[in-house]
């Protein structure tokens, strides 16, 4: 059985970490999560569960994390500040810790205008940097945001995301530094398609010494088709898919699209592994979770370490 804080141990013991993303279903069937968890088990060190990704209503991240935990996986609870105010966020932090969840990833969340309930009120009581700071304060100082004392501190490994491909580019490492200063111990990045730009971001990250204070995991997404590549480029906020990649996907016959996507993905993994300061990869195979074992295997990242 994987220890509850597997990810933290893998990283602190200096292993190259592999995490993957699992999107909960748009329904109440727990077997959807069990199936995805079953595919990932033994191939990754931890599984991120998205929180109503792209503002579309899905099974709660917390519930899905518990289903994965019961299967012996180490879940990463993703939590956005879009839908919860500071009362709900802090309450969920306590609840997650009580249920044995040991990793949390604090995010802003995509704006609700992208999702299935564009008429929803957006909360944004605190932002993602302040949320990281809040979880750190709850854990390390035993205090709520109000300053009142917590009886029974939460125990969580704190993560954040950063998008090296958003603008303004020159602020992107500084913003990661801000999150690490606030308390983030690991950083998972937006999907890397533009390796050259990612390497330039990492140069700034190293110049600021962020990689020495937090573990940086590069986001990896296998492309399924040229259509998906174009969609990601044009319709997903903050995504940088170079035209060359879209052309490359389109240059092979249809039945080879997936193979080409996996090949590109393996090349990307290889490239980011060679960048100084990268501590692991985070695979976001959007609605294609069953490809993850193949990718991890072909990338030569098996077997996964079993940390002491």
């Amino acid at each position, binding site marked *: 059985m994987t220890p509850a804080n597997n990810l933290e141990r893998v990283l602190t013991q200096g292993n190259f970490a592999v995490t993957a993303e699992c999107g909960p279903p748009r329904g109440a069937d727990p077997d959807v999560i069990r199936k995805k968890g079953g595919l990932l088990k033994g191939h990754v060190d931890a599984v991120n569960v998205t929180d109503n990704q792209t503002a579309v209503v899905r099974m709660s991240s917390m519930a899905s994390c518990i289903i994965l935990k019961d299967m012996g996986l180490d879940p990463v609870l993703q939590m956005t500040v879009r839908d919860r105010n500071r009362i709900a966020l802090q309450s969920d932090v306590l609840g997650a810790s009580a249920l044995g969840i040991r990793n949390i990833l604090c995010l*802003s969340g995509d704006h609700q205008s992208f999702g299935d309930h564009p008429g929803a009120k957006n909360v944004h009581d605190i*932002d*993602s*940097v302040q949320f990281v700071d809040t979880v750190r304060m709850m854990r390390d100082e035993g205090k709520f945001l109000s300053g009142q004392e917590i009886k029974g501190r939460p125990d969580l490994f704190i993560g954040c995301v950063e998008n090296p491909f958003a*603008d*303004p580019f020159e602020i992107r490492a500084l913003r990661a530094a*801000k999150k690490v200063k606030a308390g983030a111990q690991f950083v998972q990045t937006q999907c890397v398609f533009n390796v050259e730009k990612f390497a330039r971001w990492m140069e700034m990250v190293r110049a600021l010494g962020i990689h020495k204070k937090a573990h940086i995991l590069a986001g990896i997404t296998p492309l399924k088709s040229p259509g998906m590549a174009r969609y990601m480029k044009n319709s997903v906020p903050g995504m940088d898919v170079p035209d060359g990649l879209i052309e490359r996907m389109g240059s092979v016959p249809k039945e080879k699209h997936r193979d080409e996507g996996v090949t590109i993905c393996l090349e990307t993994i290889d490239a980011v592994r060679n960048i100084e300061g990268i501590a692991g990869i985070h695979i976001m195979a959007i609605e294609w979770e069953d490809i993850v074992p193949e990718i991890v295997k072909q990338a030569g990242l098996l077997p996964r370490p079993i940390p002491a």
Partner: protein
Amino acid sequence: MIVADRKPFDEIMDMIAPYDRVLLLGCNECVTVCAVGGTKETALLAAQIRIKRQAEGRTVDVGERTLERQCDPEYVNTLAESLDDYDAVLSLACGCGVQFVAENYPGKPVLPAVNTRFMGVTEQPGMWAERCQGCGNCVLDRTQGICPVARCAKSIMNGPCGGSHGGACEVNDQLPCAWQLIIDRLKARGKLDTYSEVEKPRDWSTSRDGGPRRRVREDMTL
């Protein structure tokens, strides 16, 4: 100023359907500046209503008046007598004006002819944009004069989020990212080093979140 849009004409016609004597009430402040509820717009709407009712074969007595301000008792009090001749008031003022006329004349239905949108500025002729949300604790001194509360779609205090692209907000390509503007100005002023400070969570109790607000100045009250 407060910026508003006129409601669709059909909605207005449905609203006044039960009435045959309607006073159209404009306001000489914000809604005049944003060209939705001044004397001119009141006259235009009155003419449209008359024509439409005539086409429907139903008479209507449409009065027109514009107050200096509909949010001030000094002007609202002057309405008293003229209201006797009407069944309803159709106000072209912002939501504040509509309510203030209504609370001063509880016996009279007062209907909104506009949708009140935001507090903003005239960016160029015919274009208005939001600038302030009245949060009750202004931070513009710390954000280079650009409001992250009203102008960032996520009201982020430590921005920009991961959706900022080419100067635009993730929500809409036509919408400038407030944080791109803040960073640009920090750079221009050689103050980018201040960016590394983590801004702490805000106290929203001074905002609408603390409940409806009131301001009292003892020295001015009667």
